[in-house]
């Protein structure tokens, strides 16, 4: 447990009484209560477990620490596409996972910290002001699974600083959702953020659409590179072997989101496409770090998987959008 925990577990308890359960049984209320909040609670629990594991044993080869890392990473991936509201405050989104990292920012943050044995790791408030790239799960992955930073007393302290910071970040996100859940459920003319049903629907639909875009274009597109220049080292969290597990978790979570937005059951077309994606995922299970992109035959399987996700994206956005009567909006990948 961290010094922040008491405050935020209070906020967590309060959230249960503030959200008027069952007051408006509708798609938004169901999605917030049955989809969003339980997944956020899960990240809070796994981030707390990660910090506990680091407190007990901070060595990079600690099995319990590595297992806790995997769990926290994947639980975060399950909510990562909900990139609006509390997640956008104070750079929290980037402070959780800094990927893709085209500018090598994670190493550029870690190198001077470790090189100078910067005592900032002993001051959580100061550490929170440092580079977002150096204080999240992407940085922790390099400490636990990379070979650039040999284990030392300093990397141990840094590991603990990161796990404490990550726990703090997810607690802030979860606490922010206490109010934000109401903001979404109680939309209407008086609501400064969501003036109508359509605006909330569009927010969720955009999250679904952007989530599938990230899966196809970033999680798969970046390591695929080109036929002549595949880029396996651009895969997400490949050192931890989480590239494929993260993709699978993301697809599963997006399926649940689409189901919730569809009122509890997917349209047949969307269900068929999700099934196809899951079958294509099965075909690459032998390569959790997606390094098979460098092999022509393996690469073909990844390209097929990418295409099925792109098809799913079109079908799901149309189906779910029709059901809700809205179209997906812009997202931050636009213009890239």
């Amino acid at each position: 447990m961290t010094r922040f925990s008491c405050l935020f577990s209070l906020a967590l308890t309060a959230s249960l009484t503030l959200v008027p359960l069952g007051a408006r049984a509708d798609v938004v209320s169901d999605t917030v209560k049955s989809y969003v909040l339980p997944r956020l609670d899960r990240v809070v629990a796994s981030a707390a477990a990660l910090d506990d594991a680091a407190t007990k044993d901070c060595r990079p080869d600690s099995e319990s620490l590595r297992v806790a890392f995997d769990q926290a990473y994947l639980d975060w991936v399950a909510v990562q596409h909900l990139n609006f509201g509390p997640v956008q405050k104070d750079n929290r989104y980037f402070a959780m996972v800094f990927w893709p990292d085209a500018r090598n920012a994670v190493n550029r943050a870690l190198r001077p910290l470790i090189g100078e044995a910067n005592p900032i790791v002993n001051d959580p408030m100061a550490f929170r002001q440092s580079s977002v790239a150096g204080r999240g799960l992407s940085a922790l992955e390099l400490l636990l699974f990379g070979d650039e930073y040999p284990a030392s007393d300093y990397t141990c302290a840094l590991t603990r600083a990161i796990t404490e910071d990550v726990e703090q970040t997810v607690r802030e996100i979860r606490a922010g959702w206490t109010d934000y859940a109401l903001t979404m459920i109680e939309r209407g003319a008086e609501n400064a953020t969501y003036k109508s049903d359509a605006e909330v629907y569009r927010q969720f639909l955009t999250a679904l659409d952007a989530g599938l875009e990230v899966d196809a274009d970033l999680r798969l597109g970046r390591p695929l590179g080109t036929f002549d220049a595949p880029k396996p080292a651009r895969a997400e969290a490949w050192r931890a072997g989480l590239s494929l597990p993260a993709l699978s978790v993301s697809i599963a979570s997006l399926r649940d989101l689409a189901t919730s937005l569809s009122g509890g059951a997917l349209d047949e077309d969307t269900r068929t496409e999700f099934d196809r994606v899951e079958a294509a995922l099965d075909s690459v299970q032998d390569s959790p770090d997606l390094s098979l992109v460098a092999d022509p035959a393996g690469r073909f399987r990844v390209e097929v998987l990418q295409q099925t996700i792109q098809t799913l994206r079109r079908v799901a956005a149309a189906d779910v959008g029709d059901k809700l009567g809205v179209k997906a909006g812009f997202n931050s990948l636009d213009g890239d």
Partner: protein
Amino acid sequence: MKRTLTSLSVLALSAAPAFAVEKTDVVATYIDIAQATYGDALTTAQTLDAAVADLIANPSQDTLEAARSAWLAARVPYQQSEVFRFGNPVVDDWEGKVNAWPLDEGLIDYVDASYGGATDENSFAALNVIATPTFTLSGTEVDATDITPDLIANTLQEADGVEANVASGYHAIEFLLWGQDLNGTDAGAGDRPYTDYATGADCTNGNCDRRGDYLQAATDLLVFDLEYMVAQWEDDGEAAVTLSDDPDAAITAMLTGMGSLSYGEQAGERMRLGLMLNDPEEEHDCFSDNTYNSHYYDGKGVQNVYLGSYTRVDGTEVSGPSLEDLLAETDAQTAEDLATAIDDTMVALGEMKTAAENGMAYDQMLAAGNAEGEAYITAGIEGLIAQTRVIERAVASLGAQDVMIEGSDSLDNPDAVFE
């Protein structure tokens, strides 16, 4: 006609300003300003090219300083031209050749050990072409014994499909003139010795002849690329013809460029991200510590387009009917608000420039815990975001179609500007 106004035309005149602003005239001003701005970018680059030749022929502290001064002077018009990006495909397709950023400079020349080697993103981040006459790139043997503009443009630039392999343009030249800035977020810019270009036993850091070849080839290439862009803005050039042929699309291009440069590019990629990372490498002119000028003149370019006026490097003014005039006819309030918003941004960027000139370089402003520095940068970001919101209103008032303003996922609420 003037003497025989009917009552109807009197009414019409009282409803609209006396001198109607024609879109075609506003577009003509825009093209004139682009011509002049790229023209100035070219002449200042030619001056730089001559200064570089002098440095290589007569390496000394003086010739190095002269080349650096010429580079700084060349940045002033070029940065003001960046507002012509985004809306004009001819510029967008070309821009990476001259101003790509950020770069893995270890591709080009020696770097400090703290730079590290190859990265997940870039196997060639530490290639060091200057010290490596032959190497294998994506399975192909490359002969780099002669460093030529062709080698830089067609083999090294974006080598291995990696954008950070910036081999050409202002920032590659900047690196070769200043070297790495190893001061982190402390005072000081890059400090490359002039002897990196010396001959014989005076040569420092090895391969001085190849380094000189690279610098000269890169500067020649910059001049060549700018000549191409100047030609695109001549009256019969592709950029000018495309705009003149379709004034409505031209207005869209103007607003797209103003909004995208302000928002996604400058506020987001060049300023906000640096603050998030507290990383001194996240500054646009990171070797020379000239970033404050780059930001300032980017902002100035937006103002030039809006007000229809550009002051050339020789002090003459190019001006004509402006976007502001056009907007004022349909929505005087927004026209005024946009002028004010851009003014506010220029005040903020001006304060950042003054602070930098007084000794707090941009990379020092990025230091974690430098609240004063952060405030300068934040004021610039907020000004740019605020003016983008007004640009959005101007888009609506002018009925401009298909304006897509480029975002940046570093901005807190990337969708807000579209609402």
